[in-house]
């Protein structure tokens, strides 16, 4: 925030704490993205709740959003995406931020290509984002966003070695098309994965028991990998599934995974031009006790 510090001395900014953390001699985390487009788009896609947790480790940055313990979404940006990346080895940095503020700040140059530098000094310090636009205007925007101490997000995991672990990989745009066609006003949605016919079936159940069904055969072009050992079928709330729609539109490939517990894991690879990839992961809890 070196440009903004000057303004503090002129009395235009009052909150010194947001501008500097002189008590820390070293910056804990610095990373630079050359183009924020992918990161910004993904973050917007999972911004269904106000607060997000940043988890920064040796391998990349993960931003986690939860919806009252039913749905967890996270954006994972690998280290390779960044042109510059420094974190202390073997340490995971975690903090909470208001994600609305972050997306608002990232959108300041809306649409125009710009680079971003993230700086975080340590617990209690703000997350500093320095956005720089390379073009006709010589402009730098410095955002300093308040962070809070983290509350550990839930750790969802699927039993990958279990007998009923099923996983299929489907092309993102095709799955998005399917979701466009099904009845979105329905209350519940059922995913069925099976090694026999109908292989992969999505059923929606509406308020007055109206149903729509979409079946995708194992041999379909849109399925690239099909690994099913046992038939699993589980219902989810449509309002929970809907939270993933925005992200689905950005994805190039989606892995749909489930196990005997019924927990639905969606892993999305975000379309991008270069090698470096951004992933979005959703965990959606099933509805229990239905006949």
């Amino acid at each position, binding site marked *: 925030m070196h440009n*903004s510090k000057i303004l503090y001395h002129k009395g235009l900014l009052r909150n010194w704490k947001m501008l500097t953390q002189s008590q820390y001699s070293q910056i804990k985390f610095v990373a630079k993205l050359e183009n924020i487009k992918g990161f910004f788009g993904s973050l917007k896609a999972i911004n269904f709740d106000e607060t997000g947790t940043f988890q920064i480790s040796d391998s990349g940055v993960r931003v986690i959003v939860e919806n009252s313990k039913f749905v967890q979404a996270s954006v994972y940006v690998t280290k390779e995406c960044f042109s510059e990346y420094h974190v202390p080895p073997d340490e995971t940095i975690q903090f909470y931020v*208001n994600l609305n503020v972050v997306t608002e700040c990232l959108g300041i140059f809306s649409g125009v290509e710009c680079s971003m530098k993230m700086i975080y000094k340590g617990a209690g310090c703000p997350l500093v984002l320095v956005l720089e636009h390379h073009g006709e205007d010589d*402009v730098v925007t410095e955002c300093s966003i308040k962070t809070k101490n983290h509350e550990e997000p839930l750790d969802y995991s699927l039993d990958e070695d279990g007998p009923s672990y099923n996983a299929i990989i489907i092309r993102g745009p095709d799955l998005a098309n399917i979701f466009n066609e099904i009845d979105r006003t329905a209350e519940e949605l059922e995913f069925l994965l099976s090694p026999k016919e109908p292989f992969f079936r999505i059923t929606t159940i509406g308020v007055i028991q109206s149903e729509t069904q979409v079946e995708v055969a194992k041999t379909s072009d849109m399925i690239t990998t099909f690994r099913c050992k046992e038939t699993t079928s589980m219902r989810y709330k449509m309002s929970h599934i809907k939270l993933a729609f925005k992200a689905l539109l950005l994805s190039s490939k989606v892995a749909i995974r489930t196990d005997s517990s019924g927990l639905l894991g969606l892993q999305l690879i975000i379309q991008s031009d270069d090698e470096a990839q951004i992933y979005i992961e959703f965990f959606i809890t099933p509805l229990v006790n239905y006949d």
Partner: protein
Amino acid sequence: MKFRAVLHDQQLMREFLNAVLTLSKLTKECVMNISADKLIFIINEESSSSAPLVWAEIKSNIYFDTYTMEGVDAEHANIYLAFNPANLARSLAVISRGSVTYVKIKLTNKQFPCLTVDIQLPSANNVQNRQIVHDVPVDMIPRRDWGAYKMPHVPESQIVLTMPSLRFLRNLIDKIKNLSPSITFYANTNGELSIVAETDQATVASHYRNLEVKKVHYDENSENCGNRANTEKGMEVACLVDCKKTAVFLSALQINNLVMSCGIVQDHLIQMELEIRLGMVLHCIIPAVCV
């Protein structure tokens, strides 16, 4: 009372329409002050709560091909009308759709006072020309109320800068609007402009460099400049204004790719000026707010 103005040039017509459109985005009622050498559209601040004080000045002898007017009497050579700019914009809308031979604007009395907009459209063979006539109802403002629509007294700006690209600035302020109710404009004689917002959640500061300094006005008598006053290094000014008002003005502008200048009077106001062409200027004053 008489008023009649004619435009023949397509480009000028379009600019005229754009100016009226801009006004219509800002307010439901605007006042037109017709005098011998100038046509002034005024939006009074009180007429709508969120709009800033905006006025457009059109020099009659430069802009119109024919311009005749007769005021109340020799002493009061003005006409003051109030009308809804959206109505006028709608009657002029045909201009944007194709070529127009001429636009005549006349003050008429058809049971009640009207601004009659008479537009002629050429046809292919130049024989069956089409005539479109709209009557926009207006309210005559009695002479005793003229005082309310006098041109505001504008203090001289200490620094006037050429603003960065309009699209950019509009986006920026639009995003900051969601974060903070007020923003600070800071400028100095080195051509630096900072737009700063501070809330308990975040501090956002955008810094522009290398902007053209159009004018510097040293106010020797002024003491309230305090420590930010004329130093040997140059001068700097700052003003805190309402973010929404600024955003309303910027997003109402229907004129793109034009150079806007921004003048700042220390702790008093900022004024933006758009010279659409020689003889047509749009002004906007955004007063300072207190914290």
